[in-house]
């Protein structure tokens, strides 16, 4: 048994399910980041997996980092250096970044299923995934600048590579949330599906690419998969 409080990890038919498990907001607090690091470095390498799905318990993916924890950490890290502030990145933040980066480097497809709210660090986590399936009605955004912060976990870099510098400036400096349709148009998510089928679609895709997965060909495989799958319930003739 995996003993995590903030994450549920289960493996079904060789597909790993990583569930952000602190509903309703599935906030990413200190405990979550510690447990996610342990999961990535301690648990996942020992599993025999064909793919990983990342999603949130309940209606939302996650509201992002828990700011109280973040400010507390930053203050206690810098305290000993008061007046002579160290320039290095605090270890906990470097850890968080490396944990997120690990998902992008995995050699099985990592698919995030974005339902409901997915903001800040939560969106940054999904940007490291190989595929993002977004349910209609989801709310996406990088609101950090509204709190005088910056998306600090690769969000800016991933966003530029998916879109362009202008769109990144608009989204990051503007801080406004955006819709699944906008995300699709900007190449931030790969598919937008009916709320009811987003999860099933992601699982079926993970099963579909079993054994033929390659990171470079992942978008191509998604196209191939679509030819055999209906995106919307209403489209089913």
């Amino acid at each position, binding site marked *: 048994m995996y003993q995590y409080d903030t994450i549920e990890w289960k493996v079904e038919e060789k597909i790993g399910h990583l569930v952000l498990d602190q509903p309703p907001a599935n906030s990413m607090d200190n405990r979550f980041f510690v447990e996610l690091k342990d999961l990535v470095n301690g648990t996942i390498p020992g599993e025999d997996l064909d793919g990983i799905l990342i999603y949130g318990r309940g209606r939302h993916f996650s509201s992002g980092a828990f700011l109280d924890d973040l*400010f507390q950490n930053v203050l206690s890290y810098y305290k000993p250096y008061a007046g002579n*502030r160290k320039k290095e990145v605090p270890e906990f933040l470097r850890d968080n970044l490396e944990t997120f980066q690990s998902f992008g480097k995995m050699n099985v497809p990592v698919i995030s299923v974005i339902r409901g709210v997915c903001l800040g660090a939560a969106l940054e986590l999904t940007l490291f995934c190989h595929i993002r399936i977004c349910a209609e009605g989801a709310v996406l955004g990088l609101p950090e600048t509204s709190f005088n912060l910056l998306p600090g976990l690769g969000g800016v870099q991933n966003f530029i590579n998916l879109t362009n*510098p202008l769109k990144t400036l608009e989204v*990051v*400096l503007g801080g406004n949330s955006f819709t699944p349709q906008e995300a699709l148009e900007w190449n931030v998510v790969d598919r937008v599906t009916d709320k009811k089928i987003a999860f099933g679609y992601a699982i079926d895709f993970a099963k579909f690419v079993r054994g033929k997965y390659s990171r470079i060909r992942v978008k191509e495989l998604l196209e191939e998969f679509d030819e055999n799958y209906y995106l919307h319930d209403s489209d089913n003739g």
Partner: protein
Amino acid sequence: MSEFQLIYRKILKCDMSRSVKSKLSREGPVGLVIIDNNAGNVLDEPEFLRIDRLQDFISTESIKSIVISGKGRHFSSGANLQKLLQTAENKTLLEETIRKGRLLLDFIEGLEIPVIAAIEGVCFGGGLEIALACHIRICSENALFAFPEVNHNLIPGLGGIGRATRILKGGMGYEMVLGGDMFDAATAYELRIIDHIVPKGNTLEYSVGLLKKLVKDKPLEVINAVVRAIKVNKQLNFNDAMVEETRMFCDLAFKEALRRKEE
């Protein structure tokens, strides 16, 4: 007659005796740099604006973003070739002239407030080098781009080759410089040189409107951090850029944490 020569001739049918001018003005927090030298905005000197003038303008007017554009129908058709070849007779003078131009473009690129090039019509040679030094490029649907230097046995001299090859993946930057061919707005967008295309005549209004909305109410330190985070994407490798982004995040988080503690 080549396409270039036709376009050049059309644009250059004007008085070229005036030296290059650019006009500075502001709209709220947005500073406007308008290249203003006859119909084609030919650059008589690569340094189309004195650095100290730009620096003073930004600091005294509390400018939080900049749009660079060309007056009239074209952004800039690039260097005044005749004048350039005249200057080239004196090697020291030429080197000094080019050096000043490079310094200006490095200064513009190095700014930590957003700099958008609003490009209408022709954007050739030195004009394209100016545009590539900006952080973001928005153009009109009829915009045309080229590095025509090779057609005159020259190369872009203001850092444009380095900037083009950094932005353009897969050797397309070299193709652009070596081929010297002209390409349109849609191609430039596909190549990721251009971030956005708007209808003819709208680039300036669109860019200013967008920046006004984005920088309004934002502290300068946040604007600076966002711009730096965007710039490192092209300057560093992916991994280093991410670590740099996290480091900038830390600086802001520490300041914000202290502020919250004091409240």
